[in-house]
């Protein structure tokens, strides 16, 4: 478990390949998005799959606490107006486009990381902070992001990227709000990264 620079500075250790030029990466990302739109009629997404899995797990955990599968129908998750949208009907809640895409993202990310010699257990953090601070902020950031993403009905992938390319009004509002919220807070957390 090493800090990023330390792993890459060791001349004897594996040297990761440099990242792609941003415009090349952006153009290819755009082509993947275009393909998703015109072939399937859907775009790209990341938070939707996690939300679905979380709703499903909430129901399962609740049911096991309250007495097995027979309790599934009466769980909070089943009655809750938000989670029930994933849990009603006879279909398997995990048999979903975004869930399969999620699995693909893991495979693609892992393949790229391995091929570029970048896959290794490590913590990424700034030069003037500690691992403990980084992990505490990472978990808080995840918690806060989850609230934002559900209120906005999507994250950077489903709203900013896909909604941006399809010119959806609300997605552009979301995108500018993300940059606004981010820059408003960035100054106060600068010591974590600079």
């Amino acid at each position, binding site marked *: 478990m090493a800090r990023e620079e330390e792993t890459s500075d060791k001349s004897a250790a594996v040297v990761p390949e440099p990242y792609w030029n*941003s415009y090349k*990466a*952006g*153009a*290819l*990302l*755009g082509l993947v998005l*275009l393909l998703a*739109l*015109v072939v399937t009629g859907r775009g790209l997404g*990341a938070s939707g799959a*996690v939300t679905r899995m*979380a*709703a499903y797990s909430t129901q399962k955990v609740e049911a096991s606490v309250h007495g097995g599968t027979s309790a599934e129908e009466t769980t*909070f998750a089943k009655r*809750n107006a*938000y*989670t029930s949208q994933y849990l009603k009907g006879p279909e398997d809640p995990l048999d979903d*486009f975004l869930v*399969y*895409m999620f699995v*693909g*993202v*893991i495979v*693609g*990310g892992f393949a*790229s*990381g391995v091929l570029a010699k*970048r*896959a*290794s257990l*490590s913590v*990424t953090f700034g030069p003037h902070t500690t691992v403990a601070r980084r992990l505490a902020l*990472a978990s808080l*950031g*995840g*918690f*806060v*992001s*989850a609230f*934002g*993403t*559900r209120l*906005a*009905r999507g994250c*950077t992938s489903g*709203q900013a990227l896909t909604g941006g*390319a*399809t010119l*959806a*009004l609300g997605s552009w509002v*979301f*995108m500018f*709000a*993300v940059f606004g*919220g981010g*820059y*408003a*807070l960035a100054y106060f957390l600068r010591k*974590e990264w600079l």
Partner: protein
Amino acid sequence: MDPMMPVSKLAEWSQGSVIASAALLGVGFGFVLERAGFGNAKTLAGQWYGYNFAVLRVMFTAIVVAMVGLFGLYYLGLVDLGQIYINETFLWPQLVGGLIFGAGFVIGQYCPGTAVVACATGKIDAMIYMLGFVLGLVAFFFAFPKLESFYMSSSKGRVLLPDALHVSTGLIVLGVVVMALGAFAFTHFLDKKLGKSAGGEV
């Protein structure tokens, strides 16, 4: 010529085709995100602290390519826009959700997609981010009864920028391209000014 894309509604696809197409698109998505440097919180933090503008460059390039491709194919009569999923607009929830999401981004220095890719390449901070994300989701589920009226407020339906701004689609597409080029130029200006190198390196 009749539009030939999308092939048909996803709901009419066989399960195998849905799995294969979604998984393959996901592989491409994950691969490119990792190559762009987005599986690394330092790349992402660079956007907020001015030492690496990969986030803006990659995102706006992707949006421009997909947008020009989509609306270009539409003008050629090859795509039926009515069959493409367009996010519905809920103005206030998306504005407030975006502000909160932006704050979460800066606190955690990941967003869901980039965190998944970072997890896949062994970043422990990304795994912790995902843990916080799942806890946040569960908290949202339980808070939903109180949030529901706001969540459903200012519903505008399927609104595109051209409708909202009363400008032709072609002009909006051109405007987005010009805005993206302007933003790219600005980031290169900042690179020069701040003495940082361009490109995706961290």
